[in-house]
């Protein structure tokens, strides 16, 4: 099988990830932070180890800034929901995933905020600056587009937000584990990422790294393991935003994924993915019946459409010959509109650490077989 759907979830996982997952239901099978017996405390220590690993991987100021969530969507909902207050103006890019857009649409529907979408085609920082109002309190940007790999200048956007005292949330779903991210140089207040994509963990955990966070409200509320008599969540991070039992197996798997990336080397991951992507892009561009969207991007997914065959039909034909790709809108209708895909969306190829260099040639040959070039 050729798996080019790593932007949906990375596959295959390193063996150490599976082993860690099993340790999470065996050796560390107690409930972390919910008891004083040795199985519970051992689980808590294993979770804390992973918190430290995450903090170290992203150069976060401290382990307690790392909030574990159920995924990137939950992390983004947490960041967005707790950042806003009534009457706030929010800016989001024209590349955002529904995990960013829908929470903002809902807040706007409820009359809590109003939002504006800034274009990314030109000088992004200038476009944001032009739209700032006195009540602008939050800017959201994806680091890398989940459909074309378009890279947003998050360092510069963050610098502007810091200068103006505006909260800045980065959706790193497309970049975490693919590109280096250091919170010592990226001025953002919340960095949100899934555990199961580039970070090589399994579904069920995500992270929100909160840096200088001024949460205006609670998010998910419930059991926190401490301060149980209080009617509110604890004030300190990470417990403030970690209501309910943490998914120890998924957290341990994430820790193993991060250690694998460290051992393998992020620079090597980048170089290999970039080479594979470039060869795929070259092959797609060589066909006159295909349109590749933003082919000059160097990282992230490749997006293409055919002159006459619909995306889902292409994905189905590829699946029949053992190639996994994703067609449609990729939960990012804003980004699709921005790059101008037709109704039905497009086909997305997303490579990852598990791919072999020869798979580019194999894929292009299989594509020619199931979708012969039309003259």
């Amino acid at each position, binding site marked *: 099988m050729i798996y080019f759907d790593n932007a949906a979830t990375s596959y295959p996982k390193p063996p150490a990830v599976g082993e860690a997952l099993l340790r999470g239901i065996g050796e560390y099978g107690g409930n*972390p932070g919910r008891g004083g017996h040795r199985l519970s405390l051992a689980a808590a220590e294993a979770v804390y180890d992973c918190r430290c690993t995450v903090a170290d991987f992203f150069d976060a100021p401290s382990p307690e800034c790392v909030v574990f969530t159920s995924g990137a969507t939950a992390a983004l909902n947490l960041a967005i929901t707790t950042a806003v207050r009534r009457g706030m103006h929010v800016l989001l890019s024209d590349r955002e995933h529904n995990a960013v857009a829908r929470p903002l649409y809902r807040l706007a529907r409820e009359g809590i905020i109003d939002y504006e979408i800034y274009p990314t085609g030109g000088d992004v920082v200038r476009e944001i600056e032009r739209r700032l109002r006195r009540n602008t309190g939050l800017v959201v940007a994806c680091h890398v587009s989940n459909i074309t790999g378009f890279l947003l200048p998050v360092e510069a956007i963050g610098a502007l937000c810091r200068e103006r005292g505006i909260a800045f949330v980065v959706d790193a779903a497309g970049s975490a584990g693919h590109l280096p991210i250091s919170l010592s140089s990226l001025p953002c207040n919340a960095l949100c990422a899934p555990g199961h994509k580039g970070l090589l963990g399994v579904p069920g955990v995500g992270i929100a790294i909160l840096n200088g966070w001024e949460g205006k409200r609670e998010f998910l509320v419930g059991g926190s393991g401490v301060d149980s*008599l209080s009617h509110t969540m604890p004030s300190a991070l990470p417990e403030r935003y970690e209501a309910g039992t943490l998914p120890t197996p998924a957290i341990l798997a994430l820790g193993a994924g991060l250690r694998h990336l460290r051992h393998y080397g992020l620079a090597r991951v980048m170089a290999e993915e970039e080479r594979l992507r470039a060869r795929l892009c070259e092959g797609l561009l060589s066909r006159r019946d295909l349109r590749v969207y933003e082919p000059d991007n160097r990282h992230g997914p490749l997006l293409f459409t055919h002159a006459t065959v619909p995306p889902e039909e292409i994905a189905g034909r590829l699946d029949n010959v053992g190639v996994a790709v994703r067609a449609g809108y990729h939960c990012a209708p804003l980004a699709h509109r921005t790059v101008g895909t037709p109704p039905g969306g497009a086909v997305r190829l997303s490579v990852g650490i598990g791919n072999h260099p020869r798979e580019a040639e194999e894929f292009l040959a299989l594509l020619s077989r199931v979708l012969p070039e039309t003259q």
Partner: protein
Amino acid sequence: MKTKIVIGSITYAQKARRALSAQGIRARLIKADSGPAEGCVYGIELTEDEAPAAIRELRRLGIDYRFLSHDLFR
């Protein structure tokens, strides 16, 4: 004799335990009696002899603690 330093958050108790360990002070993570706190709490347990040095280190690191176990019996 053992002294319990009640911190509250399990994450900060873990941070405290590891920081003390780095200074050669052995402490154990515990779920403590809540005492005057608002429900369940976590902390660390260590020998009474090492408690003063531990407290100094926690203050230096800015890790707040709620009370020491012997406060409960005053």
